[in-house]
């Protein structure tokens, strides 16, 4: 496997959806290619950082306003309830 081929398979490898034979090739390549090994590590860390990053909290006042608006619209759409 060449570095380019590894790059093309990167998603499948990181997501664990690559087929076992290709996975073995992939790991054999990484064992002998430190830059590719580090790129794969970096990609995993990048995903983790975004996934586990601090969430944005919705402002409470906005939430109340939005729910008021939605209730009003709901009642227009479902009169007589």
């Amino acid at each position, binding site marked *: *496997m*060449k*570095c*380019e081929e590894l*790059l*093309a398979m*990167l*998603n499948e490898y*990181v997501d664990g959806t690559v087929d076992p034979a290709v996975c073995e090739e992939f790991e054999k390549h990484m064992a*002998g*290619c*430190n*830059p590719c090994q*580090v*790129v794969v*590590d*970096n*990609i995993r*860390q*990048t*995903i*983790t*950082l*975004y*996934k*586990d*990053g*601090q*969430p*944005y*909290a*919705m*402002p409470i006042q*906005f*939430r109340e306003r*939005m*729910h008021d*608006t*939605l*209730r009003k*619209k*709901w*009642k227009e*759409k*479902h009169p007589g*309830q």
Partner: protein
Amino acid sequence: MTNQFTPETTDAELVRRAKAGDLDAFEALTSRHEQRVFGLAMRMLRQEHDAEDVTQQTFLSVLENLEGFRGEASFSTWVLRIASHAALKIIRKRKGLNTVSLDEATEPSDDLNSIPHPEFIADWRQSPELLVERNEVRRLLDDALTRLDEKHRLVFLLRDVEGLSIQETAAALDLSEANVKVRLLRARLQLREDLTRVLGDPAQQLIRTHHHHE
């Protein structure tokens, strides 16, 4: 009262009740998904006011179109789909005001052969577990996201942050699965490059000497 529903009540059940005219069920659905929609909108738009607009528009649209929701996709995928399109609309509007031309031809190709090679390769100085604790890191992450083309950004956010599958992401954005995969790869590589330039240890930088290494 919305607390008549437990966490075990499925979205599908709430959708069924909301369609039958139950406002509490509709509000429970909104409460379940609003934070996610707001978070996605903030990461796409980086402006609280615009993110609020997207969130409200999304749930108004859910209210209007719930009857037509057939449940082929999960409710959460459907909601994220509506939110994604609302966010893109705002981005396009911003661009329309700020730039002259934005036709398809100026966009980068989604061909797998044109995937850029990693350039700055180095181990990071800290683990992601420690990095997420640092306040300046969020800004760094958001800056890197902003530098992505919005279509790559959306694919990355839906797949890697919101946890949709490739198939769900494709359905949400009206893209082919192959296209989602290429965009996801581009996004991941570009974010890796950007973050590694800041978080990587220069003393550990590796130079790729053999591009065609077997």
